[in-house]
């Protein structure tokens, strides 16, 4: 056999181990499969789990998109793209529709994903029960026994104290009615996108050495109480100051000159895409 060493940075042995763990993760939705996380040329906690998944997945025919908190041009996203490009030669894109592989931190893109795409989410803390239980041996047992009263109690206490759950991001979900899972620090707004997703979703935690997955068409329910139903961040009555989008995740910003609060799309490529299409329309109108 012909060997072409270090395509996609990792050696083939490392990829094989990650691939085995990934297949198990897909077969046991929401369960955190341990794996031997490798040293990557960036600090752990900066997406090395997601990056290792991407390296184990990527082939010559892929088109890659990397987003960091909604932006394709952040330092972290750019350095991941550089590494993959340098070691594979594959093209990168900012347009969600064009990508076959999407690695993301803190967001699921606004454009609905398809069955031909795989979403890789970077995870800093894969254990949703860690907030109240420090020991891994204990959380493993709690998952084994479906003993999730601690997770419910945590949310209940937030409601008692603040009148609502205070999980800004990473609001825990129940996968296929079995495992409580950390969806990674995506805003609550993005949680419903995981439910019966068309695309396979893989989650990787480099520092914690865990891989887990949400297969397509799998039930994902955000933990909530009947009298305090789950709610995403509310942007009703607000729209993007650039492209006018509504029904998307908006960043709030204070404009000093006007003293006003305005909003803009958090998913910058989606925003740019919409602006581009609006300009096209205007040009077409002008030429008619």
């Amino acid at each position, binding site marked *: 056999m012909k060997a*072409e060493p270090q*395509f996609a940075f990792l050696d083939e042995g490392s990829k*094989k*181990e990650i*691939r085995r763990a990934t297949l198990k993760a897909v077969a046991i939705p929401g369960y955190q499969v341990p794996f031997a996380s490798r040293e990557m040329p960036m600090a752990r906690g900066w997406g090395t789990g997601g990056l290792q998944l991407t390296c184990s997945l990527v*082939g010559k025919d892929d088109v890659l998109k990397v987003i960091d908190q909604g932006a394709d041009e952040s330092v972290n996203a750019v350095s991941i793209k550089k590494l993959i490009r340098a070691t594979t030669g594959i093209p990168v894109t900012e347009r969600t529709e064009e990508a076959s592989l999407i690695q993301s931190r803190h967001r699921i893109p606004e454009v609905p994903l398809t069955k031909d795409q795989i979403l890789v989410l970077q995870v800093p803390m894969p254990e949703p029960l860690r907030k109240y239980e420090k020991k891994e041996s204990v959380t*493993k047992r709690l998952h*084994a026994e479906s003993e999730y009263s601690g997770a419910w109690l945590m949310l209940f206490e937030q409601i008692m104290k603040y009148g609502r759950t205070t999980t800004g991001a990473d609001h825990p979900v129940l996968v296929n009615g079995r495992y409580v899972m950390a969806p990674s620090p995506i805003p609550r707004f993005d949680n419903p996108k995981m439910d019966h997703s068309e695309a396979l979703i893989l989650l990787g935690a480099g520092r914690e050495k865990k891989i887990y997955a949400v297969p397509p068409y799998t039930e994902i329910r955000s933990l909530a109480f009947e009298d305090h139903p789950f709610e995403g961040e509310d942007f009703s009555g607000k729209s993007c100051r650039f492209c006018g989008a509504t029904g998307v995740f908006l960043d709030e910003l204070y404009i000093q000159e006007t003293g006003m609060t305005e909003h803009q799309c958090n998913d910058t490529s989606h925003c740019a895409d919409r602006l581009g299409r609006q300009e096209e329309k205007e040009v077409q109108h002008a030429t008619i």
Partner: protein
Amino acid sequence: MQLDSVHDIQKVYRELLQCMARPGKIADIRDSAAKADFVRECHPATFLVIQTLLDAEVTFHVLGERKDAIRRKIEDYTFAGHTSAEDADYIIAPAETGEPELLEAIRGCRAGTLENPHQSATWIIEAGALGGSSDWKLSGPGIRDEAEAPIALSEAFVRTRSMKTQEFPTGIDLIFTDGDGLISSIPRTTAITAKEESAWVM
């Protein structure tokens, strides 16, 4: 064309991953399988799946009459260690494996534990031909509504496999290969039910 240990294996893995994520889906790895035509001991597709998953860090077991030849081939190419069906990470059931032997091995193999459900056997089962019609339908994660079972399955096989997967998250995951370079998968989460049964319920 020579089999490329990086790019062909990557392609096989991606197809395998989509099969595991979408039970019942039949994927085509024919182009890569054609490059593995030097393999006589088992289907080229079986050999490719083995090449994708096995190395010195895992163990395997082979069933059937030709087990010794296949075992040598796997050891030569992957350096994986051979062990009993009860202990193996991967169990290979070549085409001519008799059903009693297959069912006994399914009953005895590792299903993982509630704490470590991933420490279970993954099966690579050679089928006559994938596709075609079957009496079974699939439902569960990865399947929108329902899917067709990828191969004809005997009632005894379905029953034995259901016993093995009844206590989720423990269970076994099945990969099917055929002589035409097609692969498919039925992970532990998939419910296999008779088509007639559902017609009756309705």
